[in-house]
């Protein structure tokens, strides 16, 4: 019941109400883990679906995501105490030579809302920076974005470099961006392709579960 109302508050982008709900739920003895999974992440799934169907606009989804982030901050110390915080780390960036970031930012937001710890390392990112971030953050998933056909080869270079650095088995590599296709993803040896932000988050989850 309380979890359903959290979904309502998220869909309404009502941060203040959500924070009160999370605090009340904790007082009433709900575990931080349950609040995160059955309240916030489940709520953001509904938000994601509504974004996909066009019922929620992107700025509203961003507001909902911000509200969720603030609540996660409240839950964090408790999650760490109980060892419940086993969210996988995701590294995301736009490949070398490419400065488009609107789509990548949306993917990062949906990943975060799906419960991942997202490290957005920005645009125009060379392979070495991706590799360093994977190592530093102990990432389980890497997302590469490219919007230009002329920078699509940089996706392959990045994947090759990750393989050469010996950490290929440690990560799942997902790719996306308007000119990228499933077939291209397969040719360059990526583990998956997503056409939009919602499906990117779903795909990432399927790899972790």
């Amino acid at each position, binding site marked *: 019941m309380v979890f359903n109302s959290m979904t309502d508050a998220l869909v309404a982008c009502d941060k203040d109400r959500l924070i009160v709900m999370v605090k009340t739920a904790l007082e009433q003895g709900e575990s931080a883990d349950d609040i995160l999974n059955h309240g916030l992440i489940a709520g953001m799934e509904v938000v994601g679906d509504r974004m996909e169907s066009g019922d929620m606009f*992107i700025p509203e989804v961003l507001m909902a995501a911000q509200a969720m982030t603030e609540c996660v901050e409240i839950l964090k110390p408790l999650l760490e105490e109980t060892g419940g915080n086993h969210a996988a780390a995701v590294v995301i960036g736009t490949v070398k030579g490419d400065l488009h970031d*609107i789509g990548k930012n949306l993917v990062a937001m949906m990943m975060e809302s799906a419960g991942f710890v997202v490290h957005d390392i920005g645009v125009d990112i060379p392979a070495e920076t991706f590799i360093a971030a994977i190592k530093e953050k102990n990432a389980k998933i890497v997302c590469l974005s490219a919007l230009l*056909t*002329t920078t699509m*080869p940089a996706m392959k270079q990045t994947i090759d470099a990750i393989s050469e650095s010996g950490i290929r088995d440690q990560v799942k590599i997902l790719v996306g961006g308007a000119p990228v296709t499933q077939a291209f993803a397969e040719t360059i040896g990526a583990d998956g392709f997503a056409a939009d932000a919602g499906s990117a988050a779903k795909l990432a989850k399927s790899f972790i579960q």
Partner: protein
Amino acid sequence: MNKIEKIYQHALNILSEVGIKLKHLEVLNILDENGIQIDEETAFFTPEQVAYWISKAPGSFTLYARNPAYNIVIGNQHRHFMAGYGCAAIYDKEGTARDSLLSDYICFARLVHQCSHFSINGGILAQPNDVPAEISHLIMTYTAMMTSDKCLMGIPGNEDQVTQIMEMAALLFGGRSVLEKTPRILTMVSTISPLLIDEMDLSTILISARYNQPMIMSPASTAGTTGPIDLAGNLALSTAEAMAAIVIAQIIRPGVPVVFGLQSNVANLRTGNISVGSPAYSLQKKAVCELARYLKLPSRSGGATTDSAVISPQAGYESMLSLMAAYQNGVNLIIHSAGILNSYAAMSYEKFMMDLELMDMIMQYEDGFEVNDDTLNLELIKSVGPGGHFLGAADTMRKCRSHSRQPRIGVRENFGRRPPLEKYFKNIDKGLEQMLREYKQPDMPSDILRHLNDFMAGQGIPAPVLEQLNHLTCNLEDF
């Protein structure tokens, strides 16, 4: 203060208070030497500096073509259409996508050459995915030069790439010193909104200005994503970015021709993508023209733009609104006037033909009609008299071909049972086929050709590749 003055003032405040980030050390040093305040990578311009340097730019200029018949004046009351630009995909009639290829580039260059609506050819008519990206600027420029003797569009790039294009233009037009005296190759510069210009675009400004070649400064801040959601704020942001780019160009080479080319968009906030079929986009074009006139600079905006991914009623009405808004408001350079679909994501041959028809219609509309004794013609009305008809009148017979202009592809004869759309697409195919069949390559003087080929060889592109290039056909049946 009127609306335009307010937007301009706001843009000045943005440049003096927030500044603009410039990812190019040499450019930052040049600005520093010229008294512009630099804080790390951010440049701050005072209103006086902006006004002083912008006043150095010409209010209009002539762009010279290899064939002088195609020389055009850019600015004042002149309006020119240009084809779609930048796409790496081709959509077919059903909206199915495929990669664009060199053969598409050649086809579009020939279509542009054939069509009297265009005086400018080249640029990125379609990105050839079958050519390595590192040399595609050379291949596209060479192809444009060989295919057409109209004015030329350049391609932005790093310093080496833009220098190579400028050197090719120098070979084509009689040497660097001749090139520097006359505007010959027009390059589009994009900013990264909000308030950043990357190394590639600053390199493009640096080299184009050094060769004294014109540039279109084209920020595309998008209301709601890369710009404020209110159109006034978004326009001011784009204006600030364009003015910064123009000031930089003028400092490097005072007097170099520039176009005030705001491509201010609006976002579709359901997806985060841009929306260029929307009235809000067309509304901003109107302001672009007014701002350009206020700054005494030529203007640029988008043309037959649509958010539809396929030829459809939506593609038709959105493109018409957008192209008409650009033309009627007096945009000097109307880029993306033919072939573009899906918010700049793809080119389409069918859309190209459809857009030619839009241009025909708009120009006919703009021609208006004459009112004089001949066109009023009382004798004619007397001779027909009440209850008669004009179909059989000699006057009608004499003028029936000139006055009853037939659409290029539109279907008006809806008799019989054939599905009207079938006829429409048949007309498109016929029109395309005819334009390509009638294409004749303009002569290229043999000494210039030799120089160009030597230059290409020097860049590692062997003669057989060029030979092949010159023999590539563009039979649309092949696609």
